[in-house]
């Protein structure tokens, strides 16, 4: 496992093997092998692009559903989590410590679509005790990236 490579890729997944090799003082072969091993071992699970969907004309709604469930004997929360995360509209599922058990993030086209998913699919599962739906109004920062900031280099061009 190579944490330095992971950190580099996490902040910019488009960095080339050549650049990573140069930046870490390693060879391209070694870096490529490390990345391959981490992909195979599912340490690297995917490569995403950060999109500010607010800037795109398509309407898009994100909701956080706080779900309380009854854990099942022998399977704990895993089974119910699986039944939830397999739905395509679910983007993330986290098991939480606190006032509820599962944090479920859902992407839908409209409020109606999200609501329908909650009362049709989620609320009707027998182990689900309650749901509370929260709609995201605006994303300021996601995965360490601050949206809507255009930063210019304000430093003087030449400084001794």
């Amino acid at each position, binding site marked *: 496992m190579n944490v*330095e490579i992971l950190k*580099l890729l996490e902040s*910019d997944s488009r*960095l080339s093997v050549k*650049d990573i*090799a*140069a*930046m*870490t*003082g390693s060879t391209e072969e070694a870096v490529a092998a490390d990345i391959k091993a981490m992909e195979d071992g599912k340490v690297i699970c995917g490569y995403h692009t950060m999109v500010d969907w607010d800037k795109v004309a398509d309407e898009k709604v994100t909701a956080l559903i706080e779900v309380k469930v009854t854990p099942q004997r022998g399977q704990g929360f895993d089974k119910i989590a699986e039944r939830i995360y397999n739905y395509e509209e679910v983007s993330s599922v986290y098991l939480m410590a606190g006032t509820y058990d599962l944090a479920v993030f859902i992407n839908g086209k409209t409020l109606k679509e999200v609501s329908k998913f909650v009362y049709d699919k989620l609320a009707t599962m027998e182990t689900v005790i309650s749901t509370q739906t929260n709609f995201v109004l605006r994303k300021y920062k996601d995965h360490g990236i601050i949206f809507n900031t255009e930063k210019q*280099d304000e*430093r*003087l*061009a*030449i*400084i*001794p």
Partner: protein
Amino acid sequence: MRNPLSKTIQEIKPSGIRKFFDIVSEMPHAISLGVGEPDFDTPWHIREEGIYSLEKGKTFYTSNSGLMELREEIQKWYARKYDVHYDAKKEILLTVGGSEGIDVALRAMLDPGDEVIVPQPCYVSYVPCVELAGGVPVTIDLKNENEFRLTLDELKAAITEKTKILVLPYPGNPTGAIMTREDLIPIAEICKERDIYVISDEIYSELTYTDEGHCSIASLPGMKERTIVINGFSKAYAMTGWRLGYAMAPQVIAEQMTKIHQFAIMCAPTTSQYAAIAALREGDKDVERMRESYDQRRHFLLRTFEEMGLPCFEPRGAFYVFPCIKEFGISSDDFATQLLKTKELAVVPGTAFGDCGEGFLRISYAYSIDELREAMERFGEFIRELREKKA
């Protein structure tokens, strides 16, 4: 009308960087690798502390030496990081950037005719500050083959009866050179033997890319008594605009430095001092993060030069590389001017840091990898064209 200017100031050469700055400022599309300050913003928790101090109305002068709480943090920080022990009450002075510390130290210590040894290429202010303080700068031309370290022989050859101070700027701007403990030991010995004081400018100390890290000459036996350590917050914590540095010196020198500082400046900016407390207490992880990033860019540039076949020693400190361009047979100034005009890429000619910088360029890597990649493409093209022209 009579001449309003002093002879001293008229004899001081203006900074060689000025001319470049003027050309670059008229080229809006030029990429610059000429900046001597971090590209990071000051970490937010440090800015927060500054803002909080303003909200609380902490907008008054501090004592001349600076907030006691901050001086105590500096004492602890230097002891923890570099095993150097100055007394917060009597030997530490907060200054307006490291530059003020250098100026005040020289003014507190020099009589007319006293010689100050300045190894070059180096930061632009040492020589003029020595001259303004009435001293005589004696420069040493550092060598590429020594990786721009100061050697015992070079130092010995420069010492005379009048030598009072050695300026020791490591990690170095513009070369990125460092001095290890082993390198410093003989220098310290000769300073003790010949009774020479050392102004150790350690502003880049935290940006050292070796396992051992930075070594301060003040940590060597018998050296604290004759060393004035200059440091600050600009480079390590990305706080250039806050204008906050500090000097640590034996009490007898620190008292007189404080006197000059009191009359010229009064005290360092109060808001910056409050923010700096947060930097020293909780800033280790920020420094670590930025250092890792600089180190990656440093590797990136060195690899690129290697591919271009451009000789460059491996600098282990600061955020500069100092490649040699002697093969092209043109001056650093011409090289940099042509590069700027034809490829819209600004770098600083080595001669801006002393005549012995001829044949070298200072390239800063306080830029993102994307910017460096683009800049190096232009740089590579330029070099190819020069080589083709020559062949």
